[in-house]
């Protein structure tokens, strides 16, 4: 497919199409990532999926065996009780010469100098104009702004992409990537009209042939309606949008019963992977 749109993101990242497959825990594995990059978009591996530095290095090698085109690595900084060894993961990213790093979660500032020491461009994923301005100020090269339609963590402000994308494009000078709610050409064109220079898609890529998700999950995604997701963990100010099922309904029920600390423990989360 020839290039249709030339944008600041396609030019600066060296990709044909302004479509990024955002980092998704467990889903963003070499086969999917390489397929997206081979198709002209930008695939992104998730470092935490591979847990160790060796695991990440192996995933990078497997991706490189499948594509010679650019791909990125996502580093999500989580508020975990036991600090993760981000240093060794960043060493792999720098040592392997990864040119594009997507950061998410907490403020990446403590790690930014080290990440950029090898010349990587940094896409910071955030959910508010306030955080976008902060990310630009500390030296991030791109802002991926997540409207509350998104999967996973939408923040606590509940601003949808139709408002959040143009406000972010107005607020920062670096290129903006629209994330949340986009799954087809209409969303892409709309995002470009709103001021974005590219889009980020997650859920759409889970339902592809190269995605590692089980066929049962892909079939569910095809059947699901726009009303089949819901928020959990809002009461902990760690809101997450997940598919609507009995477990999610139970979590919300327990939250409203103020039994939050137990229901949302790392043990409950680990069962979701």
């Amino acid at each position, binding site marked *: *497919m020839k290039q*249709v749109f030339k944008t600041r993101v396609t030019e600066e990242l060296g990709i044909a*199409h302004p479509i990024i497959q955002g980092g*998704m*825990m*467990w*889903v963003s594995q070499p086969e*999917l990532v390489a*397929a*997206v990059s*081979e*198709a*002209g*978009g930008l695939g992104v591996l998730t470092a935490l999926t591979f847990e160790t530095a060796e695991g990440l290095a192996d995933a990078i090698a497997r991706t490189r065996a499948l594509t010679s085109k650019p791909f990125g690595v996502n580093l999500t900084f989580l508020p975990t009780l036991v600090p993760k060894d981000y240093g060794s993961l960043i060493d792999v990213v720098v040592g392997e010469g990864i040119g594009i790093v997507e950061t998410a979660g907490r403020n990446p500032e403590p790690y930014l100098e080290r990440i950029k020491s090898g010349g990587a461009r940094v896409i910071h994923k955030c959910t508010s104009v306030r955080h976008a301005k902060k990310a630009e100020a500390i030296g991030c090269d791109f802002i991926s702004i997540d409207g509350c*339609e*998104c999967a*996973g963590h939408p923040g606590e402000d509940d601003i949808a992409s139709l408002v959040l994308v143009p406000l972010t494009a107005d607020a920062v000078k670096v290129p903006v990537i629209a994330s*949340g*709610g986009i799954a*087809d*050409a*209409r969303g*892409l*064109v709309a995002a470009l009209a709103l001021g974005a220079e590219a889009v980020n898609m*997650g*859920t*759409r890529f*889970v*339902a*592809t*042939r*190269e995605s*590692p*998700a*089980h*066929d*049962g*999950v892909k*079939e*569910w*995604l*095809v059947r*699901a309606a*726009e*009303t*089949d*997701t819901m928020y*959990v963990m809002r009461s902990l100010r760690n809101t*997450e*949008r*997940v*598919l609507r*099922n*009995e*477990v*999610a309904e139970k979590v919300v029920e327990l939250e409203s019963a103020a039994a939050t600390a137990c229901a949302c423990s790392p043990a409950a*989360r680990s*069962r*979701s*992977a």
Partner: protein
Amino acid sequence: MLAGGEIEVGLMPAGQSVGLVRDVPTVGELLDRIMAEAQRIVDGRLAGMTG
């Protein structure tokens, strides 16, 4: 659950765009389709509105 396919056993992140997901194409088919349709929207539908 992503690997096992049992969608009732845990929490699985999913966005509202799930309502727009209607098939399971290859990534190549998906990007080709999106870019071809995007071109038609811009050169056809939108251009027709301003032309």
